[in-house]
């Protein structure tokens, strides 16, 4: 299967083409095709996974694309265990979302188009995962960006939605600038962009360290954009304007994780370049902390989850930054499942409650048993409670950081773990427990249809057990499958496990006290720490900062340049034109009065003389005769005198 792994990606593309060209009017068929395609991809990925388990590879395939002297860009596939895992993640989450959307998008006027976009996204994401060179990655990187744009702005009649789409596209594009520049630097230095060849050259020390650092950081810029890392994280919360299944698929589980995937792909650079590694680690750490802090106080259920995503992505990036290849990718996988579950659960809630505001919810557990139960499982998992998936992956991250000796980062990671637990349970308690704060919402709430709850159950199952493959005691667990260079098999560190669990439990306890028992009044807390509260409630004022600086500058600059264009360049052109006109008028004057004057003068003189002279021409023969004789007389006089 690995040999034909491109089929995995092309099935959804086929589905996209079919839907767009043939079934855009037939919703049932369209969704059927899309689901069939993605499930088939899942099955094929599963086969590929088993093949990879047998032979880790990497398996490399190349298809000629552009070959010109000095530039060779093949379409290549690089199939290693990470690819296999990513394929699984993408196809599983995508399948769940496809099925879930049957219920969620039911009755939408652009139902088949939604499935078309989902298929296109799945294709792009699978392509991204399969790609065997930075160049091909970049291609699919842009394509997932496009589908993200299209899906965020799916309900484009809402101004906020179309704004959010645009913001997402442009913000990630800024990161892509770095990615592109990194590709250029890397290509310039290495002469190839294929993973295998680049890795090989790095191993052989053929590329100077400084260039590697530059290339690494530049490529990581792409990840900053795509994975919504500080300082380009601002687009992700806004992206929640898209349909919730989209948020689950693209903006929680897969596309945003592509940045992490890319960072994992530059692990070779990270291990050689300390600067690059630390840049990555600290950006991850800052992001994790910042996003978690913002998540503490948000009231929009999807925004809380969005900040949670940003925070968790920061976690993964931080792990990769400290060379925790296994840890980062492991957390990527577990996070994909429970975060997708959280989003789908939130979608289910929104579907039922028709609101995003958790302050208006409450007590929904009674109305929505499956949703609330799965949601709790996912929350426990993300908080890192033994023995759920999140616990294992988070523990792996702690272990990696600890192993590399970055104690400050470790402390931060633990703190963020506590904060995560707090805001997740704040969300759970406010949504599902207690009294209904908005009776109207409560009254209309109902459990979602089966198409929506089955994926929830399936994902809940994964949220519990998917992490078990990474138990430190397993001899042939995750760490011996996905690893960098050689299996990194750390022994179980019970101290870190306990510390992590304590952090999570204390977060949950605090949330319990504040939002379930109401022992501590959150409003009072907010009032007491007013400046901090306002600061984090307003998301650290990043949007305002960017609006006030970059955007404002761009707008100002474009106006200035346009004015310059009209006022200076075009003015000059017109001036030249006008000067020409003026000149021609001057010369015209000269021409009329001097040159033409001379010509006309000559003519005039001639006329004047002639006018005199022609009077001689009387026409009377005798006058002529007279003159003749006069002439004779004169001649004689002349001769004789």
């Amino acid at each position, binding site marked *: 299967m690995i040999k034909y792994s491109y089929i995995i990606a092309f099935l959804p593309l086929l589905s996209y083409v079919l839907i767009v060209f043939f079934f855009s009017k037939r919703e049932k068929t369209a969704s059927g095709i899309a689901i069939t395609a993605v499930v088939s991809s899942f099955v094929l990925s599963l086969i590929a996974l088993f093949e990879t388990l047998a032979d880790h590879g990497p398996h490399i395939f190349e298809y000629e694309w552009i070959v010109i002297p000095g530039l060779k860009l093949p379409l290549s596939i690089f199939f290693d265990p990470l690819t296999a895992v990513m394929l699984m993640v993408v196809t599983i989450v995508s399948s769940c979302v496809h099925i879930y959307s049957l219920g969620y998008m039911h009755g939408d006027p652009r139902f088949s188009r939604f499935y078309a976009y989902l298929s296109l996204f799945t294709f792009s994401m699978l392509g991204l995962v399969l790609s065997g060179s930075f160049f091909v990655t970049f291609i699919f990187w842009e394509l997932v960006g496009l589908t993200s744009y299209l899906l965020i702005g799916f309900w484009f009649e809402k101004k906020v939605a179309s704004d959010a789409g645009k913001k997402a596209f442009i913000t990630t594009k800024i990161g892509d600038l770095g990615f592109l520049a990194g590709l250029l630097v890397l290509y310039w230095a290495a002469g190839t962009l294929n993973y295998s060849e680049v890795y090989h050259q790095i191993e052989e020390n053929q590329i100077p360290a400084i260039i590697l650092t530059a290339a690494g950081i530049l490529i990581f810029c792409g990840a900053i954009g795509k994975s919504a890392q500080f300082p380009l994280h601002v687009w992700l919360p806004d992206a929640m304007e898209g349909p919730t299944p989209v948020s689950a698929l693209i903006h929680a589980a897969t596309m945003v994780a592509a940045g992490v995937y890319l960072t994992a792909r530059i692990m070779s650079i990270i291990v050689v370049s300390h600067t690059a590694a630390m840049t990555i680690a600290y950006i991850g750490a800052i992001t994790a902390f910042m996003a978690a802090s913002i998540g503490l106080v948000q009231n929009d259920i999807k925004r809380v989850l969005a900040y949670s995503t940003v925070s968790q992505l920061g976690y993964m990036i931080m792990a990769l930054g400290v060379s925790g290849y296994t840890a980062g990718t492991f957390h990527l996988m577990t996070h994909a499942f429970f975060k997708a579950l959280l989003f789908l659960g939130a979608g289910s809630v929104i579907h039922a409650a028709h609101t995003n505001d958790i302050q208006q919810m409450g007590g929904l557990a009674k109305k929505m048993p499956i949703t609330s139960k799965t949601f709790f499982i996912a929350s426990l998992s993300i908080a890192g409670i033994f023995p759920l998936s999140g616990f294992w992956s988070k523990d792996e991250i702690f272990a990696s950081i600890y192993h590399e000796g970055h104690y400050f980062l470790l402390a931060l990671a633990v703190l963020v773990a506590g904060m995560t637990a707090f805001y997740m349970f704040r969300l759970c308690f406010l949504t599902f427990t207690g009294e209904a704060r908005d009776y109207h919402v409560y009254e209309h709430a109902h459990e979602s249809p089966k198409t929506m709850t089955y994926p929830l159950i399936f994902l809940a199952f994964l949220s519990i057990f998917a992490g078990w493959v990474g138990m430190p005691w397993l001899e042939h667990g995750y760490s011996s499958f996905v690893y960098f260079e050689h299996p990194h098999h750390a022994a179980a560190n019970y101290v870190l496990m306990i510390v992590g669990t304590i952090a999570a439990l204390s977060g949950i306890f605090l949330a319990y006290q504040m939002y379930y028992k109401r022992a501590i009044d959150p409003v009072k807390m907010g009032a007491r720490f007013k400046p901090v509260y306002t600061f984090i409630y307003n998301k650290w004022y990043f949007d305002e900062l960017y609006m006030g600086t970059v955007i404002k500058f761009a707008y100002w600059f474009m106006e200035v340049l346009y004015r310059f264009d009209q006022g200076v360049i075009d003015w000059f052109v017109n001036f030249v034109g006008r000067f020409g006109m003026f000149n021609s008028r001057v010369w015209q004057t000269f021409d009329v009065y001097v040159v033409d004057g001379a010509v006309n003068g000559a003519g005039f003189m001639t006329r004047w003389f002639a006018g005199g002279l022609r009077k001689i021409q009387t026409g*009377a023969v*005798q*006058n002529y005769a*007279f003159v003749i*004789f*006069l002439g*004779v*007389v004169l001649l*004689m*006089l002349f001769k*004789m005198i």
Partner: protein
Amino acid sequence: METGIFYILAAIILTSALMVVSLRNIFHSALMLILCFFAVAGLYITLDADFLAAVQVLIYVGAVTILMIFAVMVTHQLTGTTMRQVNEQPIPAALIIIVLFILLAIAITQTGFEVIGKFPLMPTVAAIGTALMTVYVLPFEIVSLVLLVALIGAIIIARRD
């Protein structure tokens, strides 16, 4: 005697010529022209040119003047004596002929002609005939042609078409 005849003839010629150019009635002018031609013919005789005198009378008086009189008759309704017969330049014309005459007279008197004396009067008809048919035969024939052309031309011009 000879001198007397000359002066009488000269007087007749000049008087009649002046009347030709100055008479109001063109018909009278034509008559005066005949007189003038006769006088000139007389003058030819004094110059021993008997044949030419005859020709003068025959052609000028007999043909040309009669032709002129015919023309005058044809155009008679326009040649009434009431009209001014002289144009606006008699005074300049007079001045110029006076000056011209003075100059001619000066030229004539100043020039020393080599006069070869007088020959006795003798008939010239035979001599002229011989000359015309021998030495001057070509000009003679050309002139006859010119006459012919002039005749035809006159007919063509005057023809009413």
